[in-house]
């Protein structure tokens, strides 16, 4: 039997004074793929931010357990060290911070048990991961998200995921803003990383097109801050027919 990785119990949260999550319950086990869909404003992105510990979100009720630890009020760095990862919808620019140095710092802080990698050792690891997301080596000379195109930002997030090898990756609308070619590349990369590791995935998306690449174990429909319905792949087909609103 698979171990439970993430357990969310009756999670309620707000941003400033606005209540957004109104009692989320969700369990994700090792190496499972869960897809969360839902209309704009249903709270999907807030769920992602809350799970990663964004200071923007205020948890008012409920708990989040990750690997049997209560992380409800833990800082983001602690969550990262435990193996949680968030690929952001809009990765923020950090001017002047070289991407390669940042990646090495992030890698070393998340893999303390393996010992720090030297610049050369890390470069070797990076080369192999760059291929997965089809980014040239020169890309590493750039500054973190600074002046990246939409597609480059998404690739950079997946590159970080490939390097950090989290136990659970939350992908917040990684498909949005990508043209069909980039979508193909990015999601093939995600699938490859999923297949080569024991990683579990929580995919947040607006569109079912990502399901051409990734076959979920569960599909959840979010509406007004709660998970309104949970099902398998077939749930997607129903949505395609009737839309989110008419779904009961």
């Amino acid at each position, binding site marked *: 039997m698979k171990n439970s990785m993430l357990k969310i119990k009756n999670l309620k949260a707000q941003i400033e004074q606005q209540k957004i999550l109104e009692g989320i319950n969700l369990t994700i086990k090792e190496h499972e793929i869960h897809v969360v869909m839902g209309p704009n404003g249903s709270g999907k992105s807030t769920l992602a931010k809350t799970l*990663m*510990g*964004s*200071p*923007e979100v205020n948890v008012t009720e409920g708990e989040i357990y990750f690997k049997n630890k209560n992380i409800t009020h833990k*800082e*983001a*760095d602690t*969550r*990262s*060290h435990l193996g949680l*990862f*968030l690929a*952001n919808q809009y*990765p*923020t620019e*950090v*001017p*002047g*911070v*070289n991407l390669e*140095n*940042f990646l*090495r*710092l*992030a890698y*070393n*802080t*998340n893999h303390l048990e393996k010992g720090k990698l030297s610049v050369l050792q890390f470069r070797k690891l990076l080369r192999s991961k760059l291929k997965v997301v089809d980014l040239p080596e020169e890309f590493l000379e750039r*500054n*973190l998200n600074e002046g990246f195109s939409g597609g480059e930002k998404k690739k950079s997030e997946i590159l*970080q995921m490939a390097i*950090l090898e989290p136990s659970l990756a939350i992908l917040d609308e990684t498909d949005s803003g990508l043209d069909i070619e980039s979508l193909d590349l990015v999601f093939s990369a995600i699938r490859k990383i999923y297949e080569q590791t024991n990683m579990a995935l929580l995919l947040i998306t607006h569109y079912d097109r990502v399901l051409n690449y990734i076959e979920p174990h569960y599909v959840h429909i979010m509406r007004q801050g709660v998970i309104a319905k949970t099902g398998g792949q077939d749930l997607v087909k129903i949505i395609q027919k009737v839309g989110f609103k008419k779904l009961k």
Partner: protein
Amino acid sequence: MDSINLNQDYKTKYGFKDKVKYKTKFPKGISEEVVRRISNIKNEPKWMLARRLKAYNEFERRPMPTWGAALSDIDFSNIHYFARANGSKGHSWDEVPEEIKHTFERLKIPQTERKFLAGTATQYESEVIYSKLKEQWEGLGVVFEDTDTGLQKYPELFEKYFGKIIPYKDNKFAALNTAVWSGGSFIYIPKGVKVDIPLQTYFRINLKNMGQFERTLIIADEDSEIHYIEGCTAPMYTTDSLHAAVVEIFAHKNAKVRYTTIQNWSSNVYNLVTKRAAAYENARVEWVDCNIGSKTTMKYPAVYLLGRKAHGEVLSIAYADKGQIQDAGAKMIHRAPETSSLITSKSICKNGGHTSYRGMLQMTHHAKKSKSKIICDALIFDNKSRTDTYPTNIIENKEVSLEHEASVSKVSQDQLFYLMSRGLSEEEATSLIVAGFLEPVAKELPMEYAVELNALIQLSMEGSVG
């Protein structure tokens, strides 16, 4: 940018104080008698004593500046104006006293020198005790001495240049320095000689209430090149200290001079320094000025562009934490045609620190077809901290171009969260954001200094967030 694990706290690394036996130490306070004794003990030429006395009168006569940072806490009667450590000046490491050597070793000076330095002059207290110049440079006629020795050996150069671009009447602290100066570096680069490895000095205050009044004079003759680096670290003390230095640079036709400072005085030091350069035809002078420590710094490195096509640059970094005021900036005085200047100022303030950019740009009617660019960027951490900009432009002819860009940014919650969600602690994330902000300037520094700058910033961040 990179993470540096120092495994040492600030006090251990920079705040240590070794016991040194002082051969000569004057009682606290300044008077005409003190000025005469300083000159006498150094066996100086008469004109220098006369200059010191005039400067002393100017210092006494002149009121404290009424602009900039508050300086009323400085008690001039509670400062030592001269101290000479035991041991003679020498060019050989073996001659340096053990206790002093110990301090230097903790500052890693010998290793540094072995690695890539052409010469090291380390100012310990008011005088340079240890100075060495590699033979290849001596063979080329390069002079790198402490200023006292320089005056003894090259009186004609001193009569020609000393106080020429910073006269003692310039300001109260230049007057004070001229009256009681001791130590500093004297550098002369002959025509056509290019010193491609930086010359470097470290100096520190190691005596309680010891003021440092070093005097540096750099003369780069025609077609020569020099990069001079000055790094300061100081022990931690609880009573106020004063550092009032004067640096004069002369860059003759086609010469290139870069002067780099990393200032990390302890948080009780008033750092009031006058730095000025004369750039003649087609010469280039660059001041790289990093102010991290001190209680209050007032420093505005200047370039007087006196010959056609002369170029001046100031790269300034200021970091102000709790209780600190960094009032830094630049002065560019264009007095010849086709001259150009660039000022880049990067300041950071947090925990109630206060940074100011204070700049003066003048284009006289001689400065036809000249251009200048000023970039001021400030990074603010919290609402308690403050940053100000005081630019003054005096433009006396119409054939010039002037650009001014200014930006103020706040460390955003988004950036911190993003970096922390990748496993970095809040301190690491903050250091990284600061290092990124400083990156355009840090990359202009020699590798070792860039690393040291990052290490200092990182030390400053430790225990100060969250």
